[in-house]
């Protein structure tokens, strides 16, 4: 009962946090950063969780797992539904290449750092180190698609598009790498030594289920037409079946739902647009719910190993990530300001990082996983504050003033509309 009330409280807070009246608070710089990055949700989660008022306990992970798994499925479906040729053909090859470079460097280096930090830590049992390293590696891939808080000008829309597109591409890569590494690391009972190769079979089985479900969903979407109630029924059916199958096959529900999204998006026709709009409408609410859940599930009592990991990830993002930043999609050569903003945008941590962390804690609510969630939240908040405050300090470049000429009309008089 208490868990149900806690979940209702979190949903209520998420709806409140995404209401138009609340959005007005973003005008203040710091509040804007806290709201845009979802950090306010994390802080609220901390406040109502065991570390604060204890309105919701850590038992949320085992007891609330079914409903939170559906939330993971919702996010996976959102990511997967984007992966269709109609959208992907807008991504220039150069941007796709840079995204792939960022993913491989970030996953390998940050994963290795996490492995080094945790492999000898007393808090981390041997079988939890690889999943944690995979989590940190995957969470370091990409940057947020949200560009509003960087205060880009209209002339920098090409950069905003580049950041959004590469972030959109990074999300499925991060989900896939984490799911495969996590499955191979062996979460089987009883634990086995070495990679769990049977996991590849389970992932293959999951892909087959996703294809079958995609065909069924296409038929169901045609029947649903534009009736919202029917769309909701189709959505809940797809998410419930796919996440249920994922839990049974011990595959990440986020990954499984993403696979289903990919199949649905490539099979369905016009019906998809309505379905996609229907799902995307809840994007902000779902994001806030997961931020609050992350806050509740966090264990803030970090030890030396996890504190070291926090410092290492923050430094990695501030020093290495700017070198992996995307180029603007605008055909004009980038200005000095847009280069700076692109580098700062790459420092920020994508919101998917917390979702991956919550997914791991739901699978295994151990103290080290809960501390890893805290590490991700704290590193994300530090990097967001650093990047956004610095980006706002970067002056907007104005075109060079024309040489004064008495006979020429003034700028205002001569300006064309």
């Amino acid at each position, binding site marked *: 009962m208490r868990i149900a009330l806690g979940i209702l409280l979190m949903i209520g807070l998420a709806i409140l946090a995404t209401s138009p009246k609340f959005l007005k608070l973003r005008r203040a710089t710091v509040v804007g950063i806290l709201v845009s990055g979802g950090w306010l949700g994390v802080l609220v989660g901390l406040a109502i969780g065991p570390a604060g008022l204890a309105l919701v306990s850590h038992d949320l992970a085992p007891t609330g797992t079914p409903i939170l798994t559906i939330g993971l499925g919702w996010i996976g479906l959102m990511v997967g539904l984007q992966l269709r040729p109609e959208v992907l053909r807008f991504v220039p090859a150069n941007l796709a290449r840079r995204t792939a470079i960022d993913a491989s460097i970030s996953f390998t280096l940050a994963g290795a750092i996490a492995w080094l930090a945790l492999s000898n830590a007393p808090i981390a049992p041997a079988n939890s180190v690889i999943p944690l390293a995979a989590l940190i590696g995957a969470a370091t891939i990409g940057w947020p698609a949200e560009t509003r808080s960087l205060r880009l000008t209209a002339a920098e829309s090409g950069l905003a598009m580049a950041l959004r597109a590469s972030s959109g591409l990074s*999300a499925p890569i991060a989900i896939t790498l984490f799911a495969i590494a996590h499955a191979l690391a062996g979460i089987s009972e009883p634990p086995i030594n070495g990679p769990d190769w049977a996991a590849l079979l389970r992932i293959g089985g999951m892909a087959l289920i996703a294809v079958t479900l995609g065909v069924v969903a296409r038929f169901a979407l045609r029947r649903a037409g534009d009736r919202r109630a029917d769309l909701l029924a189709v959505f809940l059916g797809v998410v419930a079946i796919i996440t249920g199958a994922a839990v049974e096959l011990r595959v990440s529900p986020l990954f499984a739902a993403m696979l289903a999204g990919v199949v649905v998006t490539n099979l369905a026709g016009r019906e998809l647009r309505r379905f996609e709009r229907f799902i995307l409408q809840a994007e902000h609410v779902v994001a806030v719910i997961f931020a609050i859940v992350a806050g509740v599930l966090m264990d803030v009592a970090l030890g030396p190993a996890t504190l070291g990991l926090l410092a290492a990830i923050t430094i990695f993002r501030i020093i290495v990530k700017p070198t992996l930043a995307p180029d603007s999609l605008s055909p004009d050569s980038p200005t000095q300001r847009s280069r700076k903003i692109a580098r700062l945008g790459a420092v920020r941590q994508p919101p998917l990082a917390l979702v991956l962390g919550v997914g791991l804690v739901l699978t295994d609510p151990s103290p080290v996983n809960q501390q890893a969630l805290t590490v991700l939240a704290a590193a994300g908040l530090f990097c967001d504050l650093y990047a956004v405050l610095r980006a706002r300090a970067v002056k907007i470049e104005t075109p060079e003033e024309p040489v004064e000429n008495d006979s020429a009309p003034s700028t205002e008089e001569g300006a064309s509309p």
Partner: protein
Amino acid sequence: MADTTDPSRNDSAENNAKQSTERVLLLIIASDPTVMDDLLTALLDFGVTGATVLESKGLAAVLREEMPIFAGLVSLLPGATGSRTLISITNLATARSVLDFIDTDLREDKRPIAAVLPVTHIAGLKR
């Protein structure tokens, strides 16, 4: 001979005449694209032969587009939401008929938002 004309009928006739000459701006925001066909047919039936239809976006759509969280790739697509805004200069009587049609003949969940605004000056309007 006494005047038998009912003054209220005179007023009503005057009122109707005034409504059919008074120019107004009819503004309709249809967020559901499936309603456009019925709406445009009705406008033609009521005698609105000229209107401008603009692609538009609601506040929530703009916020979602500028602040994508998990679906950054979709923002690469041309951002059509299906929402349309229709503007037309017409007379008050016609505009009222259109409002009645919207209120009574269209399904509540698809009903566009419509407003009628007074017009004080017009230039360049083709008859």
